[in-house]
């Protein structure tokens, strides 16, 4: 009698002693897969307490209904109270029809004192530990536009001999390379020219930061530290609300102020009156007079970014 071998091979149940090679590989794969999945989601478990399910499931800014938006803003206000101990009001002003915001700085007047940098820091609830700000003032050698030679950490009395000072912040480009670089459309240009970021949609890849030729974007390496008493309670969803760790942010022309007709904080703080802000679509605006009567240039014009930010000299 010869024992039949065929029936034995046909048994393929995953039972010890009768495991086929294929089944064993499947089993190992499933085990490893489960382990890998557990590892992959482990950061989510760590996030408990920092990120709510609501926040995790929040949709893109442009897909939020007015009710969704109100709910999101309410949640953010409560979270600010919980995490920073401050009562704040988060608004979401939309662009004013017929408005395109433009900035100009008079470099004949700017003396590099840096009050704009400080005003931005305070207005926009920046991290106190790093003195973060959307503005960087470059101390430049007269006679050159070589920004490689510029210095941002000068601490001597200004203006220094043979130097000029060029504050640089987001240029709100009409052809913004940063928004093209974003893989998740967390940053875009709005109708009044302001390039904004949905901090709750940003994945923190920093492609936009690398794409910006003006080094205008900032990354939140850590949870910002702002004492409750110093928090500016007048906040905007797309502007100066306290940003979470791990997202990119940038100058938004103080849209929580400017979309309500007010001047940006950096302009009001400037002791030299070097800054001018306005609506380029208004032919009677100050900004139009400057463009028509002053020697004006834009930064890195050759890149074709078409900044909404101008520098000019007197005479």
């Amino acid at each position, binding site marked *: 009698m010869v024992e039949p071998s065929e029936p034995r091979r046909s048994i393929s149940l995953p039972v010890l002693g009768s495991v086929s090679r294929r089944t064993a590989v499947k089993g190992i794969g499933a085990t490893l897969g489960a382990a890998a999945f557990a590892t992959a989601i482990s950061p989510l478990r760590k996030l408990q307490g920092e990120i709510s399910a609501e926040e995790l499931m929040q949709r893109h800014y442009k897909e939020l209904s007015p009710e969704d938006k109100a709910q999101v803003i309410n949640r953010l206000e409560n979270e600010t109270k919980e995490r920073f101990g401050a009562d704040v009001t988060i608004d979401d002003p939309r662009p004013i029809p017929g408005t395109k915001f433009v900035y100009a700085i008079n470099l004949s007047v700017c003396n590099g004192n840096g009050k704009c940098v400080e005003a931005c820091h305070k207005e926009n609830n920046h991290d106190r530990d790093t003195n973060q700000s959307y503005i960087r003032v470059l101390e430049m050698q007269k006679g050159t536009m070589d920004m490689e030679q510029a210095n*941002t950490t000068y601490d001597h009395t200004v203006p220094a001999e043979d130097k000029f000072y060029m504050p640089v912040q987001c240029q709100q480009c009409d052809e913004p390379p940063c928004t093209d670089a974003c893989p998740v459309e967390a940053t875009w240009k709005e109708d009044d020219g302001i390039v904004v970021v949905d901090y709750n949609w940003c994945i923190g890849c920093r492609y936009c930061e690398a794409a910006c030729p003006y080094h205008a974007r900032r990354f939140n390496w850590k949870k910002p530290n702002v004492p409750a008493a110093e928090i500016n309670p007048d906040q905007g969803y797309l502007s100066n609300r306290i940003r979470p760790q791990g997202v990119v942010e940038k100058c938004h022309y103080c849209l929580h102020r400017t979309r309500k007709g007010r001047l940006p904080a950096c302009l009001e703080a400037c002791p030299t009156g070097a800054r001018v802000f306005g609506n380029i679509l208004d032919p*009677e605006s100050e900004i139009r007079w400057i463009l028509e009567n002053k020697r004006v240039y834009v930064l890195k014009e050759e890149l074709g970014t078409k900044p909404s930010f101008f520098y000019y000299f007197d005479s």
Partner: protein
Amino acid sequence: MTHEQDQIHVQLGRAACAPLCLILGVALAGCDGAQPEAASASTVSQTSTNESVMLHPVTINRPAGPPVARVQTADAEVALACSTCHDVREPDFTNATTTDLDLFHVGLEFVHGDLSCLSCHNAEDYDALRLANGVSVPYPDVMTLCAQCHAPQARSYENGAHGGMTGHWDLTRGPRTRNNCIDCHDPHEPAFPRMQPTFKPRDRGLQPAQHHGEEANHG
């Protein structure tokens, strides 16, 4: 004093639709150690001619009036007008700078081109100023005086391209306050003062190399 003669018509911002009639004014702080009593502000009323939109006012800072010298007497501090002393003293047109003085205003820094005291101060009325053509200007309208030599700056100012401001870029939504010449420029030493930058970024890349502490986040 005929204020009307000293008015300068300035068009600000939305000038074409809202002709502004600004009285540019202000004061040269005349006596050393003397300050205007209080800075007041002139409100520029605006009316819209071809638009029904009501515009909020642009207010230009102005000194309240002539400077006042505060003198400490045995029993009280008294405020004296310039004319208190100058009415009984003959003006000396040969005094070109404060170094020529030996009794009052000694030590007052004066670095303002080739001007002398009585280029701007009015020898016929020490509580007012005078233009180059001899017309008297009240202290609150000092910008009229400045503008006669500093035309390019005055032109830029008229068009919103010189001088600091606060408030609203959009006058349909709120008012604006603008600085006066002498808010930033000391009339006796008008060069903008040098400043010490006080706020600097502390970027990680700008710091000397440091070891990560326990709180360092590698997330």
